[in-house]
């Protein structure tokens, strides 16, 4: 199977402070990969490097074999990377419809399909996104990323801080996306939910990938040591 996304020994820094010391991972077409680790271990930094919001210092990042080094964030997004950033980042003054329209690019995903995935958004189309509930904003952030018609969807803590019922709704959406064959890189703390959706996982510890494999191979000792669960 061909690799959609491949990171080899990626390192990155925030100014003089090095945050990643060698992250490697591989995500195949149509698969879901969970990126795991405790807070501050480099998950979001890895995602920022993949989406080129933070340039990596060493190693390589390849999307469908194309080296992303030297490309800017909009170019990477246009290559097919849809990012749902941490913290439900919608464009607050714009309406739901405007948030979706602004990201739209040609492809199978359109507003009707996003609404079919998250029917709640259909009832809120004309509403300014800052007035949505947290869960609705998260659905909108996922919908906006889908409107870019990505070949790879990255979800960074998509269900953090949401009510259990809303989390279920979002996980159901993610499972549906997986069933439709979309490749997904997901960061989340809920091991229970990740087990239902992820084909494999990579664990980060102090900015390094320390383990990778099917989630079912994670032993209680490993989860205790690396995930603090």
């Amino acid at each position, binding site marked *: 199977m061909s690799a959609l996304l491949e990171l080899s020994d990626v390192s990155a820094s925030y100014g003089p402070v090095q945050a990643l010391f060698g992250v490697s991972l591989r995500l195949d077409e149509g698969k879901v990969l969970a990126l795991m680790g405790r807070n501050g271990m480099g998950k979001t930094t890895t995602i920022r490097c993949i989406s080129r919001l933070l340039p990596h210092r060493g190693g390589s990042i390849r999307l469908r074999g194309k080296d992303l080094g030297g490309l800017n*964030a*909009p170019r990477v997004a246009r290559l097919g990377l849809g*990012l749902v950033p941490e913290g439900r*980042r919608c464009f607050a003054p714009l309406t739901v419809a405007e948030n979706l329209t*602004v*990201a739209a690019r040609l492809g199978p995903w359109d507003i009707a399909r996003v609404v079919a995935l998250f029917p709640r958004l259909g009832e809120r189309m004309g509403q*300014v996104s800052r007035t949505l509930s947290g869960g609705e904003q998260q659905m909108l952030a996922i919908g906006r990323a889908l409107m870019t018609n990505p070949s790879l969807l990255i979800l960074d803590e998509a269900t953090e801080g949401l009510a259990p019922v809303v989390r279920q709704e979002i996980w159901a959406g993610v499972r549906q996306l997986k069933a439709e064959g979309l490749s997904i890189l997901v960061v989340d703390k809920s091991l229970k939910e990740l087990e239902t959706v992820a084909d494999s996982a990579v664990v980060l510890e102090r900015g390094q990938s320390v383990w990778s494999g099917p989630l079912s191979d994670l032993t209680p000792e490993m989860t205790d040591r690396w995930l603090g669960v």
Partner: protein
Amino acid sequence: MTMNREFIINIMIFGLLIAVGIGAHLAGQGFTVTLATKVAILGLAGVGLNLALGYGGLVSFGHAAFFGIGGYAAGVLASHAANGDPLMFGFGGSNQMLVIWPVAMLAAGFAALMIGALSLRTSGVYFIMVTLAFAQMIYYFAISWPRYGGEDGLSFYVRNAFPGMNTLKPIEYFTICASLLGLALVFSGLVTQSRFGLALQSIRQNPQRATAVGIRATPVRLTTFVISAMITALAGALYADLNRFVSPSMFSWHMSGEIMVFVILGGVGRLCGPIAGAAMFILLEHLLGKVSDHWQALLGLMLLGIVLFAPGGLIGLITKGLDALRKEKADV
């Protein structure tokens, strides 16, 4: 719902300006027609800046450069046409507004492309300073340009011509200016509601988030800056014709500040905000200017009040007032 309400307010404000112009003409108040024309022209300059400042978050403190370029385009072309002295390549200038406006807009657009390409590499206070620096450079250039009057400016004695109209008649010139303002408002409204406009507003809200969905911030901002400058230049050309005089003061930072005041007073990012702001400014200047030379002190207090207590400007206040009225009616 909000859009509809604001749309009605916009129509009311523009309609009020037209009504004042026509009403004053019917009442034989030529001076008031000229004041309404001045509001339309300065409002148009504000509509231009509002695109960059209100929708794009680009706090340009150098829009006087484009206002002045528009003005000087009108003045220079008109003076060459009047003197019969060729301007360049055998082109002898023009006193036709339909020639002057595109020249003014293209010249300002080109200047904005150059200024924007450099200044958009910076942000925040540095962007403000770079745009101001460019405007001041052009200001000092105009002062030291004796060919076109230098510090004394340049007078042209007959207002430029528009086919089928007598531009010297206040009401006819008002009609031209108000029509252009109306067109600029429609254009500005269409731009801000288009996908381009949404991208612009997304970038203003969070540039990094916008780039993550594939929006290229710099080209969008630069295009907006150029369009904004071209609209402001058109206002400059009209202003030159209104006064039949251009001077380096059109380029000065005071002018940039005034255009910004129109936008802030009326409501940043509100379509008709600059018209409301310009109208308030002209009204204060006219009414209080008779009482004291220091009328701008009151303007300063008003501006302070708006910034502190009504960030939506005059349009925001009107919207809030209408909301309160509706709520009161509903309660009864």
